[in-house]
């Protein structure tokens, strides 16, 4: 049965609490335990890193959904030297579940759009847990057309449970808003790079992912539907989501092997995502490298290559 907590972290949490005790003791006894503390810290990091090499697909789903994960705003802050958020779809409203704007990365003007999950309950309710409504896709759509007009490459960040399952979204033509995004991106005449930074949930995620390059962080997932949904439909038991996570092959490594994503960037344990300079540097370099390569292509070649990139995905017998 699928567990919903980071159970695999229990041993490290125990060790960490021991470490805290030792630090307190060191103060109380006015004794220097720094060598011992450093030793335990080192061992803890080693253990954790080793465990991260052997995560199950379901553990990766949990990590992908971790509320403490950096959000699109965090990545923008990290990567853009200047960023101006732009609002609204000019039709209906401004969806906080998708943010977008313009900024500079490595001396290059870019358009950035991405799903925006909240970091706490209040923010998540405001942002609809990162589930876009039609106005979110339409805001992104308008920003993509602007990017094309000004010849700016596009960077997208993917992290959403999926499209909004509400009445209003249906009433305002959610399916139409998503398909228009797929159509727009598939022939957009500027480079598009997508980074999956958490949960790539179904059509709501795909709407921002029709890119020349798709990068996934190592403990993120991309799925046709949530493992719970698949389990409840195919196994009639949503509690067997962990089994589904394995069967559906939704983790970064599997999707790389299937040729669906282009690069996987190793993540540090979840506590250190933004603190790890090595990780941040690798991500930054990767984005720059892809943009450099894509910007050097002739526009018609770029569009043709993107068409072929998606055209060849699918397995069948002839």
């Amino acid at each position, binding site marked *: 049965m699928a567990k919903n907590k980071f159970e695999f972290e229990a041993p490290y949490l125990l060790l960490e609490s021991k470490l805290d005790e030792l630090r307190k003791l060191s103060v109380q006894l006015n004794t220097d335990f720094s060598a011992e503390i450093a030793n335990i810290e080192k061992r803890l990091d080693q253990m954790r890193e080793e465990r991260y090499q052997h995560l199950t697909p379901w553990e990766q789903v949990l990590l992908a959904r971790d509320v403490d994960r950096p959000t699109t705003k965090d990545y923008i802050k990290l990567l853009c030297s200047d960023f101006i958020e732009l609002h609204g779809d000019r039709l209906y409203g401004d969806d906080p579940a998708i943010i977008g704007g313009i900024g500079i990365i490595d001396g290059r003007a870019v358009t950035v759009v991405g799903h925006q999950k909240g970091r706490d309950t209040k923010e998540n309710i405001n942002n609809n847990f990162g589930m876009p409504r039609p106005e979110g896709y339409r805001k992104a759509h308008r920003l993509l057309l602007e990017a094309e007009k000004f010849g700016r490459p596009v960077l997208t960040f993917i992290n959403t*449970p*999926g*499209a909004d*399952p*509400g*009445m209003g*979204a*249906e*009433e*305002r*033509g*959610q*399916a*139409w808003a*998503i*398909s*228009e995004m*797929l*159509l727009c*991106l*598939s*022939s957009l005449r500027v480079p598009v790079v997508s980074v999956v930074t958490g949960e790539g*949930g*179904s*059509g*709501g995620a*795909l709407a921002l*992912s*029709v890119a020349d390059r798709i990068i996934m962080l190592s403990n993120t997932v*991309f*799925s*046709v*539907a*949530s493992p719970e*949904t*698949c389990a409840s*439909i*195919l196994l009639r038991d949503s509690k067997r989501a962990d089994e589904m996570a394995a*069967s*559906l*092959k*939704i983790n970064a490594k599997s*999707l790389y092997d*299937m040729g*669906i994503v282009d690069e996987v960037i190793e993540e540090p344990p979840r506590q250190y995502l933004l603190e790890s300079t090595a990780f941040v540097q690798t991500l930054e370099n990767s984005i720059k490298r892809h943009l450099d390569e894509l910007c050097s292509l002739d526009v018609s070649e770029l569009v043709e290559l*993107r*068409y072929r990139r*998606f*055209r060849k*995905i*699918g*397995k*069948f*017998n*002839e």
Partner: protein
Amino acid sequence: MFNKKRGYIDLSNAKKNQAALDSEGNFSCPSCSAWISEAQKIQNNDFCPRCSYHFAVSAWERIHAICDENSFEEWDANVSSVNPLEFPGYEEKLAKAQEETGLIEGIVTGRGSIGGFDVVIGAMDSRFMMGSMGSVVGEKICHAMEKAIQYSLPCIIFCCSGGARMQEGMFSLIQMAKTSAAVGRLHEAGLLYISILTHPTTGGVTASFASLADIIIAETGALIGFTGPRVIQQTTGQILPPGFQRSEYLIKHGMVDLVQPRVEVRSLLIRLLNVHQGGNHG
């Protein structure tokens, strides 16, 4: 999310009700429960004489009803599914669907003529694993659209689907991007693309090629949407108004061009094709 279960409810009811035949072979309409005989159903062009509920028709019935006699030539007839994720039980499900429908996959594509107009035509079959879109459906649609460009022909697709073929995982989700990109090429080539949304069209099919046509026709009473009504109800607790996500609701909200009963779709297509060819034909 491809939460699509609710989209099938009417279909499974239809099956159940049709299975519960009375001694004279009459069955009750899944929508209004009126008792109908098979002969009445055929005579009435597959819809209920009382409430005009459209009974499901197969891909071949659709093609025969729409195309001029003996004009249809099938393409990619032998393209068949594999089990790319080695998903447990998928082969068995495919084999069962093939046996039940006599089809190799959930869509028939090819070239034919309608009222003398040459077209590329595709028809999905809701009986084949709920008309779900996997690699084969996506591939056949893309190939048909690329051939439409090659022959410079209009393209007409009859849609009905519960959404993505979950057993193919991301391969199935990507078919949304792939088919949308193919539609983009049709548009660039200046070719007419008409989609007919039939009961039910939900999930990833609605959110890709189905909703990207120049002209979108919804068949009377069809359920059309992204998230199915039951999932909406379950996740939001909202009570859905009667007629929600039906063709008549969609035209009221500006999502489709026309709502037509099934019997009138062929003549409408002929008129649309005629106008698009400058009206020289009729």
